[in-house]
């Protein structure tokens, strides 16, 4: 057991004294990659999380489609399944986000953040990696649920390019919204608290154009339901996938909705990313 602890040190042959400074510290991209990789492995190797994150969404989609499908009129020309799927796919962003919030809080509570913050790395890169990983997980959910959607009768009217653009827009929104949830995780302190706090997004999911047309809601609820960011993204995705706003029962043009969705995403990133970075990097 007398060998040196760390061959890394021996590789750093500039050593003059007994203890060369091997800890140069990783750069931004290595740190972000390591952080993202850990989150992704955690997801795919924790059966409960993998099943929850994948099967749960699928189950809800099937239930909505067959339970509510008969009762809900979409207001436009769409059948319920064609109305539902673009909205449902967009809300994957929120479900991924909720588990991200509790994951981040768990890392804070169990000392993972303390270890990371004690390392010679750019601290901000840790949260950037987390946001990228969560975007990846949104993409995974989108992939699984997307396939299922076609199986249960989703037939987009838009061109292949437009449908693909709809998927890309959801991924962009996944990145933007992940910052909100990371912040919730960082301030939540523990997984339960973070989970509780992120329940606040449920209204954003249900009081939106995701599952039912906004026109079917009471008048006082409509301004919020129509203009909150989740609905704006859903309207953009639905218009892209289903061949224009008129067909889905809303005003304006597809370009209008896409631009509005992108502006919302930019606002979320600009506001929440710096808050996350500051919160994680602070020496309190």
């Amino acid at each position, binding site marked *: *057991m007398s*060998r*040196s*602890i*760390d*061959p*890394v*040190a021996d*590789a750093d042959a500039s050593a003059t004294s*007994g*203890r060369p*400074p*091997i*800890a*140069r*510290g*990783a750069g931004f991209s*290595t*740190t972000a990659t*390591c952080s993202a*990789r*850990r989150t992704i*492995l*955690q997801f795919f*190797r*924790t059966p409960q999380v993998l099943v929850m994150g994948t099967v749960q969404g699928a189950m809800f989609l099937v239930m909505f489609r067959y339970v509510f499908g008969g009762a809900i009129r979409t207001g436009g020309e769409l059948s319920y399944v064609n109305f539902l799927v673009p909205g449902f796919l967009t809300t994957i962003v929120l479900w991924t986000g909720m588990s991200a919030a509790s994951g981040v809080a768990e890392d804070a509570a*169990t*000392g*993972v953040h*303390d*270890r*990371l*913050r*004690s*390392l*010679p*790395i750019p601290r901000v890169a840790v949260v950037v990696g987390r946001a990228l990983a969560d975007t990846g997980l949104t993409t995974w959910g989108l992939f699984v649920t997307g396939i299922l959607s076609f199986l249960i009768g989703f037939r987009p009217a838009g061109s292949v390019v437009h449908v693909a653009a709809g998927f890309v827009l959801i991924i962009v929104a996944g990145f933007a919204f992940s910052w909100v949830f990371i912040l919730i995780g960082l301030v939540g302190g523990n997984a339960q608290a973070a989970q509780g706090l992120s329940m606040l997004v449920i209204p954003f999911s249900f009081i939106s154009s995701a599952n039912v047309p906004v026109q079917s809601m009471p008048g006082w609820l409509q301004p919020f339901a129509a203009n909150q960011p989740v609905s704006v993204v859903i309207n953009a995705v639905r218009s892209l996938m289903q061949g224009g706003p008129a067909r889905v029962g809303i005003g304006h043009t597809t370009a209008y909705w896409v631009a509005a969705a992108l502006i919302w995403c930019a606002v979320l990133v600009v506001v929440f990313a710096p808050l996350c970075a500051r919160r994680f990097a602070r*020496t*309190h």
Partner: protein
Amino acid sequence: MDPIIEARGLTKRYGDVAALDGLDLVAESGCLTALLGPNGAGKTTFVSAVATLLRPDEGDLRVAGIDAFSHPKEIRKVIGLAGQYASVEPAMTGTENLVLVARLFGADRREAEVAAASILDRLGLTDAGDRLVRTYSGGMRRRLDLGASLVGRPRLLLLDEPTTGLDPRSRSELWDAIRSLVADGTDVLMTTQYLEEADQLAKHVVIVDHGRVIASGTPESLKSQVGKDVVEVRPGDPSDISVVVEVLASVGVEEPRVDPDTHRVSVPVEVGAEELTRVVLELTRRQVHFDDIGLRRPTLDEVFLGLTGKPIDPDGTEA
């Protein structure tokens, strides 16, 4: 050589609680310094300050000669931290966990793999290296966590209660690992709630309570200063307790203490072995049966009693 840690008047308040209350501490290079104290004493707060995780409100702190407040990034290059709870990732293998941390210390992929393998070997985890940490025992997780703090080959290792919650065997394995690190020239700051642990590993022990140092020195000097050996007797019949108290009072330097739950009677004595013999003879003469009798090292509780004249305040509420 310069001291590895020099803290002067460190103060950190959380509302009304002073987690650190003017703490002064100098840890010499080339040995293990143990920070000994009860729950809420401020041990984790101090370790966090040294690890540049938090910034005290007042005071000066130098680590490896570097000012902690103006150059925290430099300090992160010379320390390794194993926090109070093992923070390795359960969904990754032992090797993957170490490679990840080595990469963050700046090693390239190949270097990181070599470093991880050598640390696993050193900690006796080679066979478990390819298993998910989820399947590890608590002791193995702790050892891997220690390993993760070592991959950057730190000058100063910070261990916050490294053996809490471990069974005696895992504890002594971890002790061996820590001893061999110190022998290789790593400076260690370790916190503990166990006097025995400090006694086993440390050259220098600092006792803290309520954010302040209340005593420090070598384990030997502290024990002769405050904690004398203790003779402890458990009579077979609880009704004999009063006789036992009487006998122990005749040899002890203080009033004997009775633990009402376990029926153990104990008293600190001047010359352990001699007094123990006298107690055995006297109890036999009086025909008192005992289930257990022995001479043991003082507990942290008793050291506190000796130092402060009052037992450890378990909630840390008293001012």
